[in-house]
């Protein structure tokens, strides 16, 4: 720390940060555009100019860009004295900027507006012609309005340098500078949505939001957790007139930081979908037509299902699952996943608890300097982690820079220095994945072989780890390379997960991390699970192995299914048999699906946006999500359907009852929490039209909706809870109307939120010594083609797949094959493939896939992965036409692929 003087004020600052970061951290207002806490400085926009004085005698000083300046001990700076320069700089930036704020989506939360006002450039003198550009179609997610561009280059630095996108860039120069693709077309990066937040003005905007646009201050918002995968990114969804309008990132230093993936941002349109269940329905037998049931009738019917079994869900909240467990009794509660999957979730909990490993947070992943991925296609199963791994490879460059005494924030210099030098990333996978471009080595192997290699790596690091036999020369060389890289790293990381559906692979990952651990210094391990609350569900099943197979085999004739389409979880024939056996089947869910269609009683449940609860992410981090808005009266939360108790009591009971869950009561400030005697408002003080917004229906203003869960209110009255970040809603601060205002709530710029509430990890590591798992050879399936799963960020997730924007990026079920197998099967470009007893589907050729293996899409329409045994026979389909939703161009791949011609929609 050093002492500096800024406009007469003495500040203690960290000399390793740049001056801009430090003065912002001290609450000063200094404008900036191109700098970003996650991306460092390049000093291009000239907005953060300050005067630096050489010594006490110096009265003139010299102009410096604060973002490019390391604070000098004892130095004197002035923000005030450079005000005129900053106003001039912004005036020149604004010359070509249109006067279109009233029709611009950014208006009211525009960093450019804020900075212009802050700089003092209040009147425009330029009255000449402005440069105009042609906009591009960039796909279903992002809108493009180049005329608003101020050429700060933040988009390129984010999209290319940070997120690794290659299909976007700057073109031309001076007045003609243009940011876009070389030709129109959908942006390829899975993280393109962050452009809308990174762009300081309205060049890149959230396209689905534009179609039902509302100003920031008119949105009702709440702190939420993304329900679309196991990462648990913090989000801030916004509602108006009963529809969910958009989702933006909510900063959480421990989880997502400043960025989320496109599934999380653009995948919530299902909340407003026609496929929502908005009323409860009932019928005596499955042959009858369902009739409308009032909430009271539906509730009575549900609670009179004596002796019913309960089937839980990894996508329902911890409280909803617990409430069902309470209703039916722990002995009648079954996890709504296969026993193989439940086994893997519990295996992961066990590893986190008993192996000497550190569960990797996203910032640990970003800080890693050697990474091994074992059989997990992270981009498609937990995308945010893939973005973090993309940052990890940059650590070699940072290390080189540190050796040369470059500061960490000096982005352009570090990139120039590092060039192609990367920290090692090794990927073992049955096919090429999206991260291959930054990988030191990619090894194409089945899950079984990858597991073996994993075991061998552990043995190479620690001789006490159990070995394996039968590795090829090539694999042995790889083992040696990876073991050396991991041993030489300061912060090695092992990543795997349930994606390959191989317990051996997960154990292999645990063995490597265990081998690397050295006393207090534990190696980082991240094990990905499929859904938002997979591990929460597993925690409820601590003492029970009841999974779907056991539910299907039980003798009871009544069942309650919680937020779960069983047809996505088990072979279709097994689910059919189970449902036919049932005399009474109740389904609680928000969306229509096949299981619900077979039910006697369907209860309309709220989505994540309309209910509150707890999700447990891949790290076992429990996080509370608040409902954003109150749905119509016929829709209730699953907890309310299932339990007589208010949510807080259900949470408290769960904390008491379930081992390891005690901490979840501390996730909120408690149901009776108030600020200045009032609950925390979900609406902004500027929320407009409250008394008029229903005037087309009724001139009487209804009473404000009440939130029975407490803490927050559906109102604009009250004080935003800036002091307790567990209820930290939309970031907003005087003079800072855009999302950039979040620094005002951070302990230091880019750091954790003040009064941090970033969730609580439930599993405590109690490992005392190194223990290893022995390699167990899995019975390899007999058949022509060994099957492995292919996941899709856009399409594999049940709920987000019902969102129109996601559907534009998704495709139908398909298989992927090697060229040689395509030739062997005699497939022509326009042929389909008949998959053993499972109909016919389209295929793509992927050169990275090994002959004799076949990739099968998971969760996409037209093919149930759970129906397939470990190996299948394939045949050319006769008289086949491709389904309408088949769109090979949407498949995220990185190897050379040839989509069968004429099949691309």
């Amino acid at each position, binding site marked *: 720390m050093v002492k500096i003087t800024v406009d007469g004020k003495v500040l203690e600052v960290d000399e390793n940060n740049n001056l801009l970061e430090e003065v912002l951290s001290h609450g000063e207002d200094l404008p900036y555009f191109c700098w970003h806490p996650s991306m460092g400085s390049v000093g291009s926009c000239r907005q953060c100019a300050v005067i630096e004085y050489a010594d006490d005698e110096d009265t003139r000083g010299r102009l410096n860009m604060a973002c490019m300046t390391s604070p000098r001990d004892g130095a004197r700076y002035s923000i005030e004295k450079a005000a005129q320069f900053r106003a001039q700089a912004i005036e020149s930036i604004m010359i070509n900027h249109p006067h279109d704020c009233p029709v611009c989506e950014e208006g009211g939360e525009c960093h450019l507006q804020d900075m212009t006002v802050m700089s003092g450039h209040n009147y425009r003198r330029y009255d000449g012609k402005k440069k105009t550009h042609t906009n591009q179609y960039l796909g279903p997610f992002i809108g493009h309005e180049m005329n608003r561009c101020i050429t700060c280059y933040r988009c390129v630095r984010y999209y290319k340098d940070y997120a690794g996108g*290659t299909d*976007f*860039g700057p*073109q031309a120069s001076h007045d*003609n500078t*243009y940011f876009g693709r*070389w030709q129109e*077309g959908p942006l390829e990066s899975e993280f393109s949505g962050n452009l809308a937040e990174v762009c300081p003005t309205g060049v890149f905007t959230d396209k689905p939001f534009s179609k039902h646009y509302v100003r920031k201050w008119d949105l009702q918002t709440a702190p939420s957790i993304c329900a679309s995968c196991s990462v648990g990114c913090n989000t801030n969804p916004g509602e108006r007139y009963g529809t969910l309008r958009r989702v933006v990132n909510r900063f959480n230093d421990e989880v997502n930081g400043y960025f989320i993936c496109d599934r999380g941002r653009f995948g919530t349109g299902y909340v407003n979908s026609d496929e929502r269940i908005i009323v409860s329905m009932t019928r005596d037998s499955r042959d009858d037509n369902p009739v409308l049931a009032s909430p009271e009738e539906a509730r009575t019917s549900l609670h009179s299902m004596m002796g019913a079994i309960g089937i839980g869900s990894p996508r329902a909240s911890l409280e909803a699952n617990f409430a069902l467990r309470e209703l039916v009794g722990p002995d009648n509660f079954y996890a709504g996943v296969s026993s193989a999957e439940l086994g893997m979730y519990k295996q992961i909990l066990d590893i986190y608890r008993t192996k000497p490993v550190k569960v990797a947070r996203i910032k640990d992943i970003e800080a890693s300097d050697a990474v091994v991925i074992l059989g997990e296609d992270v981009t498609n199963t937990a995308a945010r982690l893939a973005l973090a791994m993309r940052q990890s490879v940059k650590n070699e460059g940072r290390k080189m820079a540190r050796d040369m005494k470059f500061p960490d924030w000096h982005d352009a210099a570090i990139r120039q220095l590092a060039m192609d030098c990367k920290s090692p990333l090794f990927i073992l996978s049955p096919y090429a994945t999206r991260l291959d471009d930054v990988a030191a080595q990619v090894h194409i192997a089945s899950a079984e072989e990858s597991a073996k290699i994993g075991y061998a790596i552990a043995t190479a690091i620690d001789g006490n780890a159990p070995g394996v036999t039968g590795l090829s020369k090539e694999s042995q060389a790889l083992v040696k390379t990876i073991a050396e890289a991991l041993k030489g790293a300061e912060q090695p990381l092992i990543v795997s997960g349930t994606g390959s559906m191989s317990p051996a692979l997960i154990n292999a990952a645990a063995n490597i991390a265990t081998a690397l651990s050295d006393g207090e210094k534990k190696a980082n391990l991240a094990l990905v699970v499929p859904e938002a609350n997979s591990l929460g569900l597993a925690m409820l099943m601590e003492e029970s192995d009841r999974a779907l197979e056991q539910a299907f085999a039980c003798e009871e004739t009544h069942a309650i299914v919680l937020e779960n389409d069983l047809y996505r979880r088990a072979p279709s024939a097994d689910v059919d048999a189970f449902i036919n056996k049932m005399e009474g089947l109740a389904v609680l869910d928000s969306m229509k699906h096949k299981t619900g269609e077979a039910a006697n009683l369907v209860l309309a449940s709220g989505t994540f946006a309309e209910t509150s609860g707890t999700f447990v992410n891949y790290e076992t981090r429990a996080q509370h999500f608040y409902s954003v808005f109150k749905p119509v009266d016929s829709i209730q939360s699953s907890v309310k359907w299932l339990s007589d108790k208010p949510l807080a009591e259900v949470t408290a009971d769960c904390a008491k009852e379930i081992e390891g869950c005690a901490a979840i009561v501390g996730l909120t400030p408690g149901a009776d929490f108030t600020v200045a005697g009032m609950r925390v408002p979900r609406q902004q003080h500027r929320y407009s039209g409250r008394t008029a917004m229903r005037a087309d229906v009724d001139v009487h203003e209804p009473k404000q909706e009440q939130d029975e869960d407490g803490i927050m209110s559906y109102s604009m009255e009250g004080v935003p809870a800036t002091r307790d970040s567990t209820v930290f809603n939309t970031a907003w601060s005087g003079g800072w109307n855009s999302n950039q205002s979040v620094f005002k709530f951070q302990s230091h710029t880019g750091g954790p939120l003040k009064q941090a509430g970033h969730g609580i990890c439930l599993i405590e590591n109690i490992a005392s010594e190194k223990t290893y798992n022995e390699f167990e050879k899995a019975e390899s399936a007999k058949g022509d083609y060994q099957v492995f799963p292919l996941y899709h960020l856009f399409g594999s997730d049940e709920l987000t797949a019902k969102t129109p924007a996601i559907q534009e990026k998704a495709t139908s079920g398909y298989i992927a094959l090697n060229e040689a197998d395509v030739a062997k099967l005699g497939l022509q470009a326009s042929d389909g493939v008949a998959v053993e007893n499972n109909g016919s589907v389209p295929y793509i050729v992927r050169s990275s896939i090994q002959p004799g293996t076949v990739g099968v899409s998971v969760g996409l329409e037209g093919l149930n992965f759970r129906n397939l045994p470990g190996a299948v026979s394939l045949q050319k389909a006769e008289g086949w036409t491709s389904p309408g939703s088949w769109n090979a161009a949407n498949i995220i791949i*990185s190897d050379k692929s040839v989509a069968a011609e004429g099949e691309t929609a």
Partner: protein
Amino acid sequence: MNNLIASTAVKARELTPEEIKEIEHEKTHYPYAQAVGLEALKIVQKYQGWVSDESLLAVSEYLDIPPDELEGVATFFNMIFRRPVGKNVILLCDSVACWMLGCDSLNEHFKKTLGIDYGETTADDMFTLIPVPCLGACDRAPVMMIGRETYYNLTTEKIDEIIAEYKAKG
């Protein structure tokens, strides 16, 4: 990683053996093949007259540079032509010295005699007129360049003579 997802209507053309030979020679000067991007565009332009989308894609694939990045290079430099140009490209300086000594009137003269403004090509594809911001010969302004030849102390009469010469050459 290349643009493998976007299916574009434009397909790369085959580079000619001469182009490949020269690009390969350039590659020997640099540690990264990607560093040859600009030189490769110049080579392609030398043989083709300009850089078409098909040529851009060809270079992109040959050097494994994403087309978006190569497009950034191609459009940054105004001597890389991303539209077809005439047989002779007239580079008329419009920088300060030439401007003071009347380059605007020369531009007017081109408009009158050849019927083309800046950025335009004559109907017979003989001439394209492009402004440049200094040819390093301010002492002999106004100046222009056609091909590799620089012409100094220009007047409308002198221009007529020069153009006539080029027309005669065909």
